[in-house]
């Protein structure tokens, strides 16, 4: 599982229409990188996929569940959709271990022992087993983001959303986070990644989506989008960032 279908998605904040009609399908295990200039609506689009933003029109369907249907238990649905934020949003009053164990235990997914084992396994996977007892304030940005990824994975989701996960990091820490994400992609996780890391997108993405002005302007396999961009705005955007 891990299919996403977005149909005619529109989103306005007051009079300001940010998303003007987005259609997209993501297959199980597919990795989609969303790129585009700031203000193009990338982050808003991502936040609609776990309903952190209520949508104005259209449908968002994750694994056959319409997220905006009144019959949908959004909390249940979100358990299956992990999210990683630009600013990590770790819980500062919990240590690393508790940050990861918290949701599965609180939501009755695991008992303390299972949660601890899962958390330790995930920490090893992101290379931070020695930081289990540390508090978020004692970690570097890259370490924080890796813990945040482990926290999202602890709920064992079928879909992972990444909202500019490396934008707030010092350059030397970008690699460690992208490394963890590459591993995830290889293991077949369905992922939507809003990013400015063009190299990463080219390497990891099955599909690159270019957004501008609230629309998807161009999409396709990375070699096509980066190698033979058709759209004028896409061309000028790539000229600026590459």
């Amino acid at each position, binding site marked *: 599982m891990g299919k996403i279908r977005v149909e005619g998605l529109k989103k306005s904040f007051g009079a300001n229409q940010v998303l003007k009609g987005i259609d997209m399908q993501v297959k199980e295990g597919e990795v989609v990188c969303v790129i585009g200039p700031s203000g193009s609506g990338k982050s808003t689009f991502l936040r609609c996929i776990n309903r952190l933003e209520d949508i104005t029109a259209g449908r968002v369907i994750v694994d056959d569940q319409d997220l905006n249907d009144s019959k949908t238990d959004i*909390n249940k649905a979100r358990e299956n959709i992990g999210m990683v934020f630009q600013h990590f949003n770790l*819980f500062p009053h919990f240590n690393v271990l508790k940050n990861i164990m918290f*949701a599965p235990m609180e939501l009755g997914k695991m008992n303390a022992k299972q949660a601890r084992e899962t958390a330790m396994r995930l920490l090893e996977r992101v290379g931070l087993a020695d930081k289990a007892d540390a508090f978020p304030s004692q970690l570097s940005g890259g370490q924080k983001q890796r813990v945040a990824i482990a926290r999202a994975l602890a709920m064992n989701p079928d879909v992972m959303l990444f909202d500019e996960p490396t934008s707030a990091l010092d350059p030397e820490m970008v690699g460690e986070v992208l490394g963890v994400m590459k591993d995830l992609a290889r293991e077949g996780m369905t992922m939507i990644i809003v990013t400015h890391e063009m190299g990463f997108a080219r390497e990891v993405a099955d599909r690159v989506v270019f957004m501008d002005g609230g629309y998807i302007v161009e999409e396709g396999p990375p070699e096509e989008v980066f190698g033979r961009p058709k759209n004028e705005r896409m061309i000028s955007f790539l000229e600026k960032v590459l």
Partner: protein
Amino acid sequence: MKSSIKVSLLSLALLLLVVTGWSGWTGSAAAAPDSGKTYVIGTDITFAPFEFQDVSGKFVGIDMDLMEAIAKDQNFKYEIKPLGFNAAVQALEANQVDGVIAGMSITDERKQKFDFSESYFESGVVMAISESNNNVKTYEDLKGKKVAVKTGTEGYSFAESIASKYGFTIVPFDDSSQMYDDVKTGNSVACFDDYPVLAYGVNQNNGLKIVTEKEAGGSYGFAVSKGKNQELMQKFNTGLTNLKASGEYDQILEKYLGENASGPANQSRWGLIQDSLPPLLTGLGKTLLYTIVSLFFAFILGLIFGFMKVGRNKFLRGLATVFVDVFRGIPLIVLAFFIYFGIPQAFGFTMPLFLAAILTLTLNAGAYVTEIIRGGIQSIDRGQMEAARSLGLPYRKAMMKIIIPQAIRVMIPAFINQLVITLKDTSILSAIGLVELTQSGKIIIARTFSSFDIWLVVAIMYLIVITILTKLSGFLEGRLRRG
């Protein structure tokens, strides 16, 4: 995690029990049969020699002795409520008390609202000045000066009636000792008050001397609300006639105003302070009790309205905003008067003083606690809620486990601040007659006129308690931050 829910449920149940218990208690008191009724008599607290507290804390004076003798003669039960003169009069209007005996002059204006007994004392206004002042001898000498008077008294009306003629300004006070102090310290050059009151004060070395002859006027009467408690009025008048006939009436006057009336107790300053400590400590206890109980309820109100303010429901948010705006916008003393005098008068019921006091403090502090909680919650980065929700946590769980624990750390200094403010604010309730620390001080000063010593002790008591509480809270805050 489950246990904390249990604890909050338990405290909620306890709260309901207390609240229902209270209403049950007041309800049964109101429904008590009239036979053998105990009359509640309001009086002043600082109107020696008519009413004042003696060293042992008992209310004595001409009014008190008279009331006791009449009650004995007419065989009825009564309870004295020392409220302060203005509060007593308002309490009578609001039917919070059955009668008032407080050296109250019978005037046409008051007759509109009250029924008066036969006059039990013929008084008259005199002027007093500081002992060391030799310049002021007549009303003419007051030109351009300030004159202290006590609100609602005959002295006040008299001063008012001659103020423009002699060109002085009036400085109103709520009780006699404050008025005397104002003259002693030289802010006002003179004061006007009823002859027996001033004579008694001078007799007790209040630092003043009387310089004029008694103005004709003033008879004192016992008052009930117009058309109400006529039986009590009847008993008072009959009793008074009997006492005058038996000579007991003269004995009472003699005791306080005669040649052999007792002078000031020969007491050192230290002895006075020592004697004052027990009533002051009792007052301090009351202050603490009212602070803690009020803050407890204020905290509950603050939680409810605070969550309403950060919630998504527009109606509840509006409701909470109105609550805060109203109770933060009304000065505490006005709120106290409104709750204790205004509401009972408008709706015709009796409100116990403790309830009015706690209600006043709770509503006021509740408004501020609401804002503290709202501010604390909103100070937590939005990303925390989003991260919690994105993991599948329901709003309530995310709030309780992620937002609140972080917000509490932000709120603690503001809570400590509110604790200190509410503790000090209890003193304002002395205006409706609550005998807390400040009022206890006032009562002692009314008898001894030793403002400096007593206010110093009272101030130090507040300081000590507030310092201890602040340090204690600071310690707890430190522990919370580390843990």
